[in-house]
């Protein structure tokens, strides 16, 4: 089992690790010859959520070498916080960075080497960070797949995330930690957030939002040009467009969704009525989908 590579976009990798650590502490990292995938789970009494991040290798690595006895796929369990901190330490001043899978004192580690050069001294500094990891067998991860969700009743591009974040903070304070927030929307540009607390009922409504075309499968197919995913090909009737889809989520989960979304350049939310909320976060510029995050949150029964 071998993995080594130079990292040319350490900030993207760092951002992904940081975003995942919002949701959980331990992540499953899967390396294939094409992609790096990270997954984290979060489960509480009332809700279940999971987050999948996929980065195509050329977006972060230069000349990666990945090999294993199992179709050159490597599965690791990694501490997300440590990974994030290690990558963040590179700052903006690094000249080169690399990552490799090693074994020290019998413990497998991801070893990240960052060299920096300060303009003043012209001295090179070399920072080596070893992150202890656990190697997972293909059997251990065989059952782990992205959740399958029904076709969402509403797909909507989330409004300005700073504003959404500010409003969400107030909502969380009003409903408290175990509070519930209802999110509903339709395919004619409406998105609403609602709370119903003892002393106050609050509803925020956005209108005129974009409703991207929904693909048939549970994954996200995003295409800017003519959609060829829409097998049905039918224009939704006005009545269908106005129909509201509703999910109810734990206030903390919603706050996490908004924080995770804030990492993106554009964010599409799927509302699967009474079933789940799926957020597709595109981390790179329009057009390229080299780095994406899918965040699934189950809805409580309304």
């Amino acid at each position, binding site marked *: 089992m071998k993995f080594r590579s130079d990292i040319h976009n350490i900030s993207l990798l760092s951002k992904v690790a940081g975003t995942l650590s919002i949701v959980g502490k331990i992540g499953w990292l899967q390396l294939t010859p094409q992609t790096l995938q990270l997954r984290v789970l979060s489960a509480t009494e009332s809700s279940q959520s999971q987050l999948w991040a996929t980065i195509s290798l050329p977006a972060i690595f230069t000349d990666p070498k990945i090999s294993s006895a199992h179709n050159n796929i490597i599965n690791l369990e990694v501490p997300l916080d440590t990974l994030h901190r290690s990558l963040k330490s590179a700052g903006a001043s690094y000249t080169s960075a690399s990552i490799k899978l090693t074994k020290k004192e019998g413990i497998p580690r991801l070893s990240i080497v960052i060299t920096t050069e300060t303009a003043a001294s012209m001295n090179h500094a070399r920072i080596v960070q070893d992150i202890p990891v656990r190697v997972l067998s293909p059997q251990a991860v065989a059952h782990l797949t992205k959740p399958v969700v029904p076709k969402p009743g509403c797909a909507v591009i989330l409004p300005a995330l700073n504003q959404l974040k500010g*409003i969400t903070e107030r909502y969380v304070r009003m409903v408290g930690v175990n509070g519930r927030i209802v999110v509903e929307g339709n395919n004619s540009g409406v998105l609403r957030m609602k709370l119903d607390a003892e002393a106050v009922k609050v509803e925020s409504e956005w209108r005129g939002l974009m409703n991207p075309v929904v693909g048939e499968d549970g994954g996200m197919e995003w295409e800017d040009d003519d959609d060829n995913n829409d097998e049905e090909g039918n224009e939704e009737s006005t009545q269908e467009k106005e129909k509201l889809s509703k999910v109810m989520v734990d206030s903390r989960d919603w706050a996490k969704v908004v924080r995770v979304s804030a990492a993106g350049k554009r964010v599409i939310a799927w509302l699967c009525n009474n079933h789940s909320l799926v957020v597709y976060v595109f981390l790179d510029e329009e057009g390229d989908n080299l780095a994406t995050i899918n965040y699934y949150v189950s809805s409580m029964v309304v």
Partner: protein
Amino acid sequence: MTQNPAPSSAPGPVFSAISSSTRHIYDLLKCIGFMPIANVSISADNIRFSVEDSHSMQANVCLTPELFSSYTYTPATAYLEAGAAGGAPPSSIEQFDLEPDENNVKFQISLSALLECLQIFGADGGNNNTGGGGGNNANRPGGTSGISGRDNIPFGRQQQPFFGNPNLFEQNSLRLPGTCRFVYQGTGFPLSIILEDAGVTTTCHLTTFVPPSSIDLIPFNRTTLTHKIILKSAFLHDALLELDHLSPETLIYSVSPNKKPNFSLSATGILSSATVDFSSNNKTVMETFLAHEGFVGRYKFGLVRKAMRAMGVASKVSLRGDGEGVLSMQYLVEVGEKGAPPTFIDFRFLPLNDEDEEYEEEEEGEEGLGGSGGGADDYGDEMME
């Protein structure tokens, strides 16, 4: 329901007001945000929010029509008479008349929820740092991080009106597009706040509760007024901040007409005690000093401390005591445009039962009026009769 029956025939809301800036309203209400529940009373003259703590302290904020771009109060026909009385526009003091008015619309709401709602307006995850939200100890200042940076003003320096200095506010006070509408339809309806801001409309329905049958106002007896002091609020704030370091239980508030110091505040902690004296001669400190007789009052420090946020935002404070030892503090807050009438925040404190007579003795035999004031500001002059 012990309230008046809903005016079923009323053509529109009983109360409706529009503001293009919730910031001022938020900053004023935040001054009494140390309690979670407020009593609300609406009249043609103002919408008043009152809180009380431990039956020993009350605080009131009156939002006058000047704070809104439109302010409509349409009580049920039966009450029209009261609303239509008084032809001349009332003076600011009259607007701040706290005496109970049976005709006003009254209810209770969650003040902490209202404060959260007002922050949704212009909410921006980036620099929204107002926090707080009515936590009981939220406004206990800690050193220089106390109240909105007011502490940085050098002692004794001429202080600018608080609302005129943008540095004293959180940064997003300058970013306020959109509108905010208050609507109350009548008994049994919520108090609704509709915030329209940058593409999003937020509607908050604050549940209105029937207030206790009588909201006992701490009585302040003007006929037994012992003294009136008007000073820059910053000095009172600094004095209390100083004493607060002792973590005292009790504040001793002394006024003496003839003897120096004319006005002092003192407190005793576990290890030490401290006194802050104010000179009535120094006009930059004390604008008005009028005392008929000596006055010593002991108040729960923890309650007086709750007025510190108001001290931080106000430019002046009028301190008065009556024959029963009730202490009234009226904070003058300059809001909005230059020349706009100021807003007042009123605090009243009941004295602690004083077993200890020594302070009384000290003041014995002092009579007469030690006046050093007058002051150009007519705020509160009527209170001197």
